[in-house]
């Protein structure tokens, strides 16, 4: 009896040490790239291209951030990105989860055909040109709605994730609600929706990150209306500008005239990329800890029990 107790406590200690060691290792490897990017974003750009910057800037500067933030266009773009992210998340979470609920009902008559129709969309891509024609016919070109209208449904992947979760909810809860005469909409909004918080938080995160990071739709469908540009697209332009300044001989010639001295304020692509990455990702990264609480505790099942 006693021996077993000691054995298991040693085992416990070993496991904890082992687990903590792994976690610390993971923290180091995954924190490093971000910390590195931050260090570069604060380092003078001509110094950066020498290499050898790791976790701390060698020649501190705020210039890279100034170069990015002095573009007045990015402030409008920020609000476009923010609004589209919020709208897309709200729509997709509600519509997709409701849809997933309907298709999780095993007796639902159209369950199979609709499921196949939806799942297949994950595996083919019609190509850009026909999509452009479709959007043009729908009047979505150079229109803010191009960020919302095609993004009302969360896609096959999120649908499957939600459906799997809903299927795992004990059928008895739904049955008893039906006994009480509740309709499907009521069951969904009053029972399923609250119980699904962890998975809804997950899907919301996926959708929000995707919407926030999107730039291709800005580029293809809205590029001639700059006030519709998303933040990611405007920031991408800044990187492209820094890149072109490096490889376009005609542009370089002017910089050369004034010699290396004046060129010091030239932001190099590496530095701009770093500053842009931090500016673009911090707003969305902050979202995570807020959603995290929904799935780090198992608070849901408690409500099921009631």
């Amino acid at each position, binding site marked *: 009896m006693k021996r077993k107790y000691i054995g298991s406590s040693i085992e416990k200690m070993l496991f904890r040490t082992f687990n903590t060691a792994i976690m610390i290792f993971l923290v180091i490897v995954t924190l490093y790239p971000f910390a590195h990017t931050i260090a570069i974003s604060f380092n003078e750009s001509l110094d950066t291209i020498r290499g050898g910057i790791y976790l701390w800037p060698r020649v501190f500067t705020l210039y890279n951030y100034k170069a990015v933030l002095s573009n007045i266009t990015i402030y409008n773009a920020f609000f476009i990105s923010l609004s589209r992210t919020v709208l897309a998340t709200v729509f997709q979470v509600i519509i997709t989860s409701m849809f997933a609920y309907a298709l999780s009902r095993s007796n639902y008559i159209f369950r199979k055909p609709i499921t196949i129709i939806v799942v297949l969309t994950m*595996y083919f891509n019609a190509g850009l040109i026909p999509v452009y024609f479709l959007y043009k016919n729908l009047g979505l070109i150079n229109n803010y709605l191009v960020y919302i209208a095609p993004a009302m449904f969360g896609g096959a992947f999120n649908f499957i994730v939600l459906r799997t979760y809903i299927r795992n909810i004990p059928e008895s809860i739904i049955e008893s609600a039906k006994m009480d005469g509740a309709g499907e909409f009521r069951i969904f909004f009053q029972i399923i929706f609250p119980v699904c918080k962890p998975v809804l938080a997950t899907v919301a995160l996926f959708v929000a990150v995707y919407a926030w990071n999107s730039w291709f739709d800005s580029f293809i469908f809205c590029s001639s209306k700059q006030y519709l540009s998303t933040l990611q697209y405007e920031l991408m332009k800044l990187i492209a500008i820094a890149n072109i300044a490096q490889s376009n001989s005609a542009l370089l010639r002017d910089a050369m005239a004034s010699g290396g001295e004046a060129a010091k304020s030239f932001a190099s692509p590496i530095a701009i990329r770093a500053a842009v990455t931090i500016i673009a990702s911090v707003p969305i990264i902050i979202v995570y800890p807020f959603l995290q609480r929904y799935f780090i505790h198992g608070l849901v099942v408690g409500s099921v029990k009631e």
Partner: protein
Amino acid sequence: MKTVRKKPGWQIIKNQKQLIFMSVPVCLYIILFSYIPLWGWSMAFQDYKPAKGFFEQTWVGFKHFIFLFSDSNFLNALRNTLAMSLINLVLGFVTAIAFALLLNEIRITSFKRVVQTISYLPHFLSWVIAAGIVQMALSIEGGIVNTILIKLGFIKNPVMWLSKPEYFWGIIGISFIWKELGWNTIIYLAAMSGIDPGLYESAEIDGANRYQKMWHITLPGIKATIVVLLILSIGRLMEAGFEMQYLLRNGLIMDWSDTIDIFVINFGIGQGNYSLATAAGIFKSVVNITLLFSANYFAKKIGEERIV
């Protein structure tokens, strides 16, 4: 006879009208946005010129498919794509599930949260930055990988990892995990939080140890999620990504690094050859969908959760 048979159908539809209302409009929406543009697949059988209308295009039959399959580079790319996505799939699943299980064992909530938040940070870095870090780490001049391996005595001289074809798939696999591990884990954590804590309590009373609880409660609790995600991913074996491969490729390893997507960039889109790109896309879709249904069928056979 007819009316009798029809009646139950209508009856069901009437009974399920709320479910129909929840799903059919969405389905029509999906058909509009995802299926209607499929007419564009006709480009694969044309020498598509964007400035011409649909009826003015030259039809060329299977010319572009024949070009693809008679090109040894494409067949090479096909092999590389399948190999890399298979490696990524296996490594990705194993590590994400293992990481989720280990995270679940951490008692201190704040530590758990911090670890998890940090682990998902690399997801937000662009591939360009990620590739730059990988190149730096693998350099023979002070790269961290060589430095550590030499200190540990595994190798005597620094190895030029990116010049050796045999390491390339592994490098890609590890890079993917490093970048996406935290992100991939989120979904399993969400699934785990759906497990009834009562199960753990009663198992503890029964004297189950840590591993027994993992094996008999946690894993079965997230099994449905695992199987479903696995089926979905098997259906995406033709998608190995291209950014990382493109950024890390060089002349010495390009026979092992180029994926179908890179082939399409070089010979299709990059040359304004939208037809070739479409043909490659159709081929990928056909393979993907076949794999998906095979995996789904197999899951059905062994009685697991499945997609359809």
